[in-house]
């Protein structure tokens, strides 16, 4: 980079309203924010990791019961939700690109579309929870899972207690995932407000990038949850 450009850039950055006092320059601020989000996501991996560990232990012990319980969940709704989230990842990428290239309308449109897809996901999830509630598959006093055959083992029936463990894990894992989606919607509302005010420029759009990282992470968690919870032992 020619010296004159560098000097000009530094001069501009010193006066950039978004540069916080304790950073030397905008590059350092960007790097710190982005590393901060990556490190935070590492803690999130461990947070979900504890539950995946519990899931794997019980799935190995009670495979048949888990298969039967898994089969009672509507896989079509789950697959639809997977498609919805993959589309929302696309709109997030578009939003980041729009912020980088100063396309304000596209940025605002992509953010709104992402949030709509997120809401659609939560709506479908709510429908699933409602079905489970009506079928008495919510763990607790009114839980009931009698005489449900184990897939692939004619004449054998699932142990309701072991199925209850499956549903406990199902609700805790998808529930915490949904909580992360709701937090993501909050972050995107904030991003939308900033985008509306025109605060993002090709020089300063770190919030869109790290908000996007968070959204992608929540999507990826779902990509693991979907097969593990919905597709345990599906036979045609």
């Amino acid at each position, binding site marked *: 980079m020619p010296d004159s450009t560098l000097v000009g850039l530094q001069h501009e950055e010193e006066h950039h309203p978004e540069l916080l006092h304790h950073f030397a320059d905008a590059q350092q601020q960007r790097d*710190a924010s982005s590393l*901060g989000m990556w490190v935070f996501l590492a*803690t999130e991996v461990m947070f979900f990791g504890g539950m995946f560990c519990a899931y794997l232990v019980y799935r190995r012990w009670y495979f048949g019961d888990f298969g039967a319980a898994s089969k009672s969940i509507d896989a079509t709704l789950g697959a639809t939700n997977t498609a919805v989230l993959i589309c929302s990842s696309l709109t997030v990428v578009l939003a980041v690109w729009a912020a980088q290239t100063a396309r304000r309308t596209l940025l605002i449109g992509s953010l709104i579309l992402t949030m709509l897809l997120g809401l659609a996901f939560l709506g479908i999830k709510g429908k699933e929870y409602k079905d489970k509630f009506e079928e008495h598959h919510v763990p*607790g006093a009114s839980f009931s899972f009698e005489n449900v055959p184990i897939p692939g083992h004619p004449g054998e029936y699932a142990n309701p207690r072991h199925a209850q*463990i499956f549903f406990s894990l199902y609700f*805790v894992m998808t529930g915490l995932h949904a909580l992360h989606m709701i937090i993501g919607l909050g972050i995107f509302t904030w991003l939308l407000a900033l985008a509306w005010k025109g605060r993002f420029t090709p020089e300063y759009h770190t919030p869109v990038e790290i908000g996007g990282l968070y959204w992608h992470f929540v999507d990826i968690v779902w990509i693991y949850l979907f097969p593990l919870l919905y597709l345990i032992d599906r036979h045609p």
Partner: protein
Amino acid sequence: MSMSAVIPQPVERENYLNTKYGVWSWLLTTDHKRIALLYLLSITFFFFIGGFFALLIRLELLTPAGDLVQADTYNKLFTMHGMVMVFFFLIPSIPAVLGNFLVPLMIGAKDLAFPRVNLLSWYLYIIGGVMMMHCMLTGGVDTGWTFYAPFSTNFTNTKIVEAGLAIFVAGFSSILTGLNFVVTIHRMRAPGMTWSRLPLFIWAHYATSIIQLLGTPVVAVTIVLVAAERALHLGIFDPKLGGDPLLFQHLFWFYSHPAVYIMILPSMGVVTEIIACFSRKRIFGYHFVAFSSIAIAVFGFLVWAHHMFVAGISVYSALVFSFLSYAVALPSAIKVFNWTATLYKGSIHYDAPMLYAFGFLGLFTIGGLTGLFLSALGIDVHVTDTYFVVAHFHYIMVGGAVMGYLGGMHFWWPKISGRLYPEGWARLAALIVFIGFNLTFFPQFILGYMGMPRRYYDYSHMPEFQILNVLSTAGATVLGVGYLLPMVYFLWSMRYGKPASDNPWNAAGLEWKTASPPPTFNFDEEPVVTWEAYNYEELDAPHPQKEEVPVAR
């Protein structure tokens, strides 16, 4: 009038303490140094709460009969002692106070990478602390700090969920501190401050932060599962419903064993700084000490099941975990040998911080070696759940972590407050702490080996245990005096102490190259580092008067 004209009053230069006054300038500050002091006040408060419980425990055990408190009360006392001391004192102690204050100063940054997140972490700690206080005042918990299922999930009627939530919230405070340190150490170092020029205090905090980041979320989700299990009887940890209580222990110790390294690693960092400074030598084997911190963090994640040797895990996995627990001794021993080698032919000064560092060396070595006894399957089966275990982990967590914390507080007190503490009193306090500590906890090794179980409030069937218990209680009283003394003279020195120079110990390290106390943004000009860490030979060589260590009062 004429006097003031003749003797000009020295104008105090603007620093982080006198730049603004008022409650809100503290409660809304984003200055890492002020947040460190907020943490200092809050953890001191919880230290004395936890100490109060310890005092009651020791008083109960003074006589064999269970005569001071009832059994249920006693169960609550040791539970609350453990929870308060572990989650609200030891884990935040050095990182949140000294780490918060020193990490940016030592690497030449103006602040931590995320100052507002830093303030948030203090508020989370306070919210967790208030919940814990409320929980204790309205009944408390009686499971032991370990929350073992299914007792915690199905049987006890005490406030498990509230205590769990308090620890959950405090855990996020710990995660945010760790996150801030990792990003700060990666991204905010001054020009020339390469990784191999970092003070070893920073390496220790880096390793600590990794444990905080990767361990704490797991205990958080474990607490969520316990709360859900308790509220809804899910069966995840209930053997009656097909669940596995051992899974709880695995998940719990996956965090709570590495948590011990959250307490001891920062203390090792402090001791490294002190030993180098008061031996006037570069630390022996810098890279080995640095990477042994990382090795402890990594190995620390692979040994958790040594808490479960008698819980019903397979003999094969017990053997593997026993072997891995021995492996942790390697990086710990590397540190102890390197500190000792640093002392060799050093020009050693016996100032108060160094006395604490010596205390740490001895006590940590005893605590570490008895840890090896406990890693050995045969001995562990013999002494599990006895006072031997209690003595072992207090040698690490109190003898190790608290000695380092106090040593660090003395070493950096001139930088933090701008005042010198009274050296004579400080040496006396260090001696009292060391004697009191050993008198309290060494008899417990013998008690445990003789077979006194932990968590019993009544040992009237074994009155021969009394003499050692009396010694232990007497020691706890001495230890209490040793802990109160520094609080008194630190407070005293803030008003009456002699003003400290910028570098009263003539120590290496960037934190000594700015004013005492430092200005709000730490350095008047951005520092550029051109020297290696611990360049004591260089520091001492050109000056005719060798050091400016303050004389004891």
